């Protein structure tokens, strides 16, 4: 006997994500899920962004191991909580639910979630964020959107970091942009360098304009 089910396998995660989002909304905390491969510049981008925002920010750091990134945040006085996934390749909604218990979000208007460095798995898990950002960096090559369409199709903005390295590597910017637009034409694309600071203001201005609670 065949029994029709049609049940989303990620239901349990998605239900917790809904609760997280309600919690963030109740506290007026605009939450941003940042995804990229390892080394694309998630931590640097968060630091550059937070220093330009007028309203208070907090950070949830997701890493397989270590507290290197969260120590960096704490050095700059940013409230931070570290999640070590112990080998897991992505953050999920229940992990965020636990993490926010350890974070005082009163008055915080921007919560950055730095996902585990990985272009595949994080895309599948709703954390309860308001927007998703993908970071790619010039040395990784212009083919990333073609190789990881799952992630690039689900984000509200793509940041291309390390554009100061453009003269030194073969990076076809048009090809990169086309790969994103082909599957996600509504996404914003920002070109910037956390090293030279070029382009960061434009990105920060956009992020502020997206925050209904700023």
């Amino acid at each position, binding site marked *: 006997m065949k029994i029709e089910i049609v049940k989303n396998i990620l239901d349990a995660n998605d239900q917790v994500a809904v609760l997280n989002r309600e919690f963030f909304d109740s506290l007026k905390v605009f939450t941003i899920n940042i995804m990229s491969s390892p080394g694309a510049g998630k931590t640097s981008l968060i630091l550059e962004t937070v220093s330009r925002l007028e309203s208070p920010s907090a950070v949830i750091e997701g890493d397989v191991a270590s507290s290197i990134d969260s120590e960096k945040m704490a050095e700059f006085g940013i409230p931070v909580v570290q999640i070590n996934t112990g080998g897991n390749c992505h953050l999920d909604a229940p992990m965020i639910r636990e993490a926010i218990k350890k974070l005082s979000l009163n008055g915080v208007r921007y919560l950055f979630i730095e996902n585990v460095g990985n272009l595949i798995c994080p895309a599948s898990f709703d954390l309860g964020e308001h927007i998703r950002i993908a970071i790619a960096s010039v040395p990784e090559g212009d083919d990333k959107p073609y190789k990881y*369409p799952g992630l690039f199709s689900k984000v509200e903005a793509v940041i291309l970091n390390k554009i100061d390295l453009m003269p030194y590597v073969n990076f076809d910017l048009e090809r990169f942009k086309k790969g994103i637009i*082909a599957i996600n034409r509504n996404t914003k694309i920002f070109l910037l360098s956390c090293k030279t600071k070029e382009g960061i203001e434009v990105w920060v201005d956009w992020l502020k304009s997206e925050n209904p609670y700023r």
Partner: protein
Amino acid sequence: MHELAVTEEIINTVIEVSKGRKVKTIEIVIGDLSSFIDESIRFYFELLTKSTSLEGASLLFKRVPVKLRCYNCQKEFNPDETFLCPYCNSLGGDIIEGKEFYIESIEVEDEDRDSEKYLRC
């Protein structure tokens, strides 16, 4: 790696729905844009169901290729790596298939047949 948690989720749902009946087949639909791997799910499934009522149930994966609706001509197509529409040659489209990840159905052993077997014993 993340297939472990996902496989536990599948098992929980199947146990709930099958209500103790012997499960023969589980049909799972996976879109090519979702990040899940059949073989990985199968591996964890066999590991986790050993000596349980689900042991021996077979997993049937239905892969759904990516399908776009062309931004320009609105025709539907399965893109190759260029993402160009084969009808009008323009770039890209809205994703209409390829993100699926769900249990479609399960097949359980017929209750009637089970009771017949029971009577024969």
